[in-house]
């Protein structure tokens, strides 16, 4: 059985000549990722907000999330996700060649 303590995040010492230290690197990367997802995946936030308890204090959150989803959709920012979803749905729906045949021909296989 294992007898070591190594962590998967122990990769290497800092490489020289990098512009940002680790903390700034994380802040910028996480910020940009979150901003990008807000724009390209706003409907996920709207779905999440829609599932909140319908009470007056959640109404502003729901309205803001719905507004963001509408605005991003109006600018076509939801299209990449829609195209991906359509492709993935096709992959999920794919069947083996013999399954696509009519029932009487399938029995012969």
């Amino acid at each position, binding site marked *: 059985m*294992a007898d070591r303590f190594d962590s998967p995040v*122990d990769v*290497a010492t800092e*490489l020289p000549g990098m512009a940002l230290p680790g903390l700034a690197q*994380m802040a910028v990367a*996480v910020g940009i*990722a979150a*901003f*990008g997802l807000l724009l390209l995946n706003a409907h996920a936030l709207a779905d999440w907000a829609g599932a909140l308890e319908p009470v007056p204090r959640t109404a502003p959150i729901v309205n803001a999330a719905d507004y963001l989803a509408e605005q991003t959709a109006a600018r076509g920012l939801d299209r990449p996700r829609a195209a991906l979803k359509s492709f*993935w749905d096709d992959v999920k729906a794919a069947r083996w060649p013999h399954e696509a045949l009519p029932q009487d021909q399938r029995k012969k296989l």
Partner: protein
Amino acid sequence: MLFPTLDFAIFFLPVLVLVWTVGQASNEWRKIILLLASWIFYGAWDWRFVSLLIGSAAINWSIAQAVHARAEAGGSVQPWLGIGVAANLGILAFFKYFGFFLEELAPILMAAGFGRDLPLLEIILPVGISFFTFQGMSYLIDIARGHTKPASFLDITLLMSFFPHLVAGPIVRASHLVPQFQAVPKLTRSMVAASLILIIWGLFKKAVVANELAIGLVDKAFFDPAAQTGLDLLAGAYGYAVQIYCDFSAYSDMAVGLAGLLGYRFPRNFDQPYRAASLQDFWRRWHISLSSWLRDYLYISLGGNRGGVWFVCRNLMITMLLGGFWHGAKWTFLIWGGLHGGVLAIERLWREWRPSSAAFLPRPLAILFIFHVVVAGWIFFRADTLAGALAYFAELAALRPGVALTTPLIAGLIGFGLAIHFTPPALLPALARRVAAWPAPLTGLVAGLAILIIDTMRGDGVAAFIYYQF
């Protein structure tokens, strides 16, 4: 609150900001923020059990003080250590095993005329109880053995409550994490890169691979094996092997990655387990933090490798049976543990008495054989009942023709889940080094796109992690 949900992201981002802003001014405040966040995280599941978490930490902290004081005074630490271990096991036994023993004893008690006095207790199992009680026990034993020094109440409470590992490990020991709590963490670019890769990779394994296999194949195959074809049942067994790996290793990867972004290092918990060429090798690669826990605190306490070969086999069997029982109070888990213990013992006997003329099995065949031993064990592990597991084997042996559940996507995911065990082990560090050299905006852009793709590929909702129930 599950890691691969928007709920968790909305919880985690403010915690990350607070830890690296307010927490920068004072390390104590950083720990207090993390502790409060951990209680909110645990309380989101059931607020009542936050007090259990605090109580458990208080018991372990105070007993550790007593054990250390006795050791310093040159007295025996055994009485206090015994009380501490009994207290942890008592908590675990009450929540996890009370119902099992009551159910097993019910027929005897009924026959003896005590049936009407049986308590009607529906005990809710607190999430992650097996993990934090094991952490508490290892802390006490390490103090008694002199492997670690007593920590402050804040550090111990945070050790046991720290949300990245709280509900499904890895089991992080005080000797590893407390020294990290005592220093102001530093974040390097490579640590950020490795953490982001682990979080995204974990998201993919859980939300896409494990979820798709569970919903599309495994749940249906195990629900009613009699209604499935032989190929689907075979795929169901392989599919569960991939599902449980992708589910559990995903949790560990995300836990390591989230802790990494907070500046802390968690141990590796998985290392391509299905490329193991022996069962001993498998346990060096699967749930490493549990297997090393069982080795250090149970197997060695039983005598370990000392004594004759039969004594070692006995220790292996007891360790694996108790390891099985740790997963839950069910006969299927005991059989799973017994199967692993039995094969480990056979491997030990074979190493001891292998005739010199006997050839070694070629490595690919050994990997294939061990994989199928593990898959057979998973059938017991996954089945709800012993009868269900036996029915699965029987229906599998019936080899009914045809294929219905195993779509090309499902077959592809099984193949993918197995293929990732044979990638170069240094792939992650190599990739992390490369990503660490990228400009931060590019890292953010790629991370955002990867999460968008994963979110698109996953079905509606995410099932709880398999190891939440333990």
